């Protein structure tokens, strides 16, 4: 078995037992990429296998195990462009905190994953480079915005990857690609070095082949960071050590708003079977209501775009990245022309749409009606969850309303694209941890994911349930064919 098909924890074992050495892992990955990458284009640019050094700089949990990180996570000296023209050539002079932690645990970056430009998207089609394709069927999208992170892991080009999740950008591509994707509690993982989309919603998280790897990665990257004032100072549990507890008596809520008339019947079916499986393991269920669910997408698109419009203001051609110096509009003062030309040429259509919408909802006269109102609805959404978590340990929902759609299917319908996030968005608004893991395949052979949400900073309960489910099913063993 080629090493690229293994999980991090399996490789850990083999490395510790000195049955393999790190160079073999890289060699197998390199070979796999040669075959598969032209078909799926998961990476933003060619991986850098040559720069890998095996001198044991640090020994740790992930010694010798390579990492793929999304193109919006800064690594010192590496091109980090958020799949956008406006960041052309940008090499951050510093490492994101999660990258420091990966390195401290012995891992190293071998590639940057393709993404929707600035994380704006649910299909990886707004990348300025090219769309990434779903390894299960290359006519279909891998999901987004961490499409490349998910596809590379699903295709076994990567052992694990890191992505970012603002409205579902880890979980939805994980579901569409049949792998495990975790969004930690807001504040669990440092955002320092993550090029921001929506600061109050963003979190970095792992995309992995199984739940144990997810637990392992979270243990490595989580923790308080003095450079991130929104990160929380509470101890990080040894998540992998806590796996394996049985789930008898765990109380899981099923929110009725997530299982409506007319939902995709294959998704409904897969969730129903998952529920039965969990029930057979001793889990008890209850139907609950999250009454403000229908307002989540609207609230999200106001808050997220408002924050994004401000976060993206810094991309102006002054310090780094693209600068458009052609003076095409001499009616403007030269500086203003530079800003407008640079940003006009550097941002793609979705980025422009979000910047305009975000600027609009913050503008004079509209702030109260939009941003302020959305922030209050956000509080109500969080309250809904707080109420449910008084009686229940976890919540079970589908991750995505459908399996992977075709490339180009939703690109002309922005609102429809936004609605793909309907199941994942609320967790970001409420700051809750949530995981997606595979729970079925459609008739056409495309993966279906289920989502488990937990209480703030209680990821161990999510892992506990997810692990038992996984170990009692075989979905996590399924691999895309024909690559």
């Amino acid at each position: 078995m080629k090493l690229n098909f293994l999980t991090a924890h399996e490789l850990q074992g083999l490395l510790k037992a000195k049955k393999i050495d790190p160079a073999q892992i890289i060699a197998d990955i390199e070979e796999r990429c040669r075959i598969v990458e032209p078909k799926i284009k998961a990476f933003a640019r060619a991986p850098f296998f040559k720069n890998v050094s095996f001198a044991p700089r640090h020994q740790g949990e992930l010694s010798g195990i390579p990492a793929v990180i999304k193109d919006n996570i800064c690594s010192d000296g590496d091109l980090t462009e958020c799949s956008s023209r406006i960041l052309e050539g940008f090499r951050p002079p510093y490492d994101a905190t999660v990258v420091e932690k990966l390195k401290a645990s012995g891992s190293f970056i071998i590639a940057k994953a393709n993404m929707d430009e600035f994380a704006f998207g649910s299909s990886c089609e707004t990348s300025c480079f090219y769309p990434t394709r779903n390894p299960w069927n290359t006519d279909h999208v891998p999901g987004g915005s961490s499409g490349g992170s998910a596809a590379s892991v699903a295709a076994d080009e990567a052992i694990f990857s890191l992505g970012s999740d603002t409205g579902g950008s880890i979980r939805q591509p994980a579901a569409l690609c049949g792998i495990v994707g975790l969004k930690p509690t807001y504040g669990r993982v440092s955002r320092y070095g993550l090029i921001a989309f929506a600061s109050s919603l963003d979190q970095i998280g792992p995309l992995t082949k199984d739940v144990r790897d997810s637990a392992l990665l979270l243990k490595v990257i989580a923790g308080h960071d003095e450079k991130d004032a929104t990160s929380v100072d509470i101890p990080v549990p040894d998540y992998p050590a806590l796996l394996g507890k049985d789930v008898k008596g765990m109380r899981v809520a099923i929110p009725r708003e997530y299982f409506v008339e007319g939902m995709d019947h294959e998704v409904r079916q897969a969730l129903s079977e998952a529920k039965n499986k969990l029930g057979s393991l001793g889990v008890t269920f209850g139907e609950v209501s999250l009454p403000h669910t229908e307002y989540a997408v609207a609230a999200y698109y106001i808050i997220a775009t408002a924050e994004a419009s401000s976060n993206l203001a810094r991309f102006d051609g002054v310090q780094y990245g693209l600068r458009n110096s052609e003076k095409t509009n001499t009616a403007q003062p030269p500086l203003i022309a530079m800003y407008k030309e640079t940003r006009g040429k550097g941002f793609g259509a979705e980025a422009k749409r979000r910047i305009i919408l975000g600027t609009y909802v913050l503008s004079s006269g509209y702030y109260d009606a939009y941003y302020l109102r959305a922030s209050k609805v956000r509080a109500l959404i969080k309250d809904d969850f707080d109420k449910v978590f008084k009686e229940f340990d976890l919540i079970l929902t589908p991750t995505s309303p459908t399996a992977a759609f075709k490339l180009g299917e939703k690109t002309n319908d922005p609102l429809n694209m936004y609605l793909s996030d309907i199941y994942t968005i609320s967790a970001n608004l409420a700051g809750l941890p949530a995981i997606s893991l595979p729970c079925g395949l459609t008739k056409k052979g495309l993966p279906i994911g289920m989502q488990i949400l937990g209480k703030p900073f209680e990821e161990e309960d999510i892992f506990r349930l997810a692990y038992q489910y996984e170990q009692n099913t075989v979905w996590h063993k399924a691999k895309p064919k024909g690559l």
Partner: protein
Amino acid sequence: MAYEAVIGLEVHVQLKTKTKSFCGCVNEFGLKENTNICPVCLGLPGSLPVLNQKAYKMSMKAGLALGCIPRQCVKFDRKNYFYPDLPKNFQISQYDMPFAENGSLDISVNGRNKKIRIKRVHLEEDAGKLIHPFGESYSLVDFNRAGTPLLEIVSEPDMHSPEDAYQYLTDLKLILQYLDVSDCDMEKGSLRCDANISLRPEGQATLGTKAELKNMNSFKAVKAALAYEIMRQGKILGNKEHIAQETRLWDEKKEETFTMRSKEEAHDYRYFPEPDLPLFVFSDAEVEEIRKTIPELPKDRLRRFVSTLQVSEKDAVVLISIKELADLFEACLDLYNEPKKIANWLIGPVLSHARPSFPVTPESLTKVISLVEDGAVSNLAGKSILAEMVETGKSPQDIMREKNLAQVSDPDELKLVIDQVIANNKKSVADYLAGKDNALMFLVGQVMRLSSGKANPKAAKDMMTERLKKC
């Protein structure tokens, strides 16, 4: 028609923290361009701000000292606009939940007391610096200053004359210096002031259209700019025309204000809560702890100097106008209980030697004063000892010895000199005896001359008077 000027001031001071507001870069002036930078103050993608604890405490301290009501829950907001000296194209500032609000400053102008209300005190980060090389088509940006903590103090429009404004600024600066939160040095840019001024007919309650004034680099300039504006706006209103609501810059050379060609059209700053910073919650205990660090403020000190320490109002005003000077005064008083004499020395010779600080210790200064008062050295010699002390740091006694400045008071020694003067100045002696009192001073002067300034003038005068009686 008589018009009344209505003036409000916005003052920005750089806080005296060691580091910038949101990152660990040092808070220093004059470094080589773009060397005091980091991902945070440059606003590099992925960077995040973390609030400097000292800045937060200083802001609350200033608010409390200005009589404001502190907020229990404080929030930061983003002020969004595009400008090349603003690395993120937004400034982290405070919009609706600043540190403190609704305070006041009592000022006294031409003997009249006025209360100037303070609307709010908030913290924000400074922008970088722009340089516009003359005649070129480009500008240069230096981000060293970006991220420096600025305290903004906004007054209500309670001032009605350029003198009011000048006094407000003087008093405000002194309070902030006493609090040790800022150097308030307009030349170094650690204090900046913008003014809003409008005119309205006397007796009218509603405000007229205001102009915003910028680019005033000293308190004098603020006063002059306001005076100019009163005249300019008065003329316009006199012609029954309208005042344009605009920003005007003060031209120091031409001594007039002119319209700033629109830098920005209507500013829509799109304020919203800064999501990268949490809320800051102050307990009552914490506020009290900060309040306890407020030293005696200038007005209270002035009162105490006059009523308890027997200093004249005139002297007290000078002493308290520089905190270090007032501190030195009190320290000297502890060693040598002669307030008037100490005050004279401080206000005169010591102040004339002041560099950024006062290079004398209470011990050395009181020693000099007592040497003079005891007659060991003359007043003049005392002043030169002080100068030498400042220059070399040597002790007064050492200097006195080295420079042989000991005053001569010994009667036998004086007698010799006096006799000689009397012998050499028969005409003056005669003049004195004939009733010309001035002649005495002349003769004493000759004693001083002959003794190379060493004679104790008082003793010399007394002895001379006695001696002349025998003539």
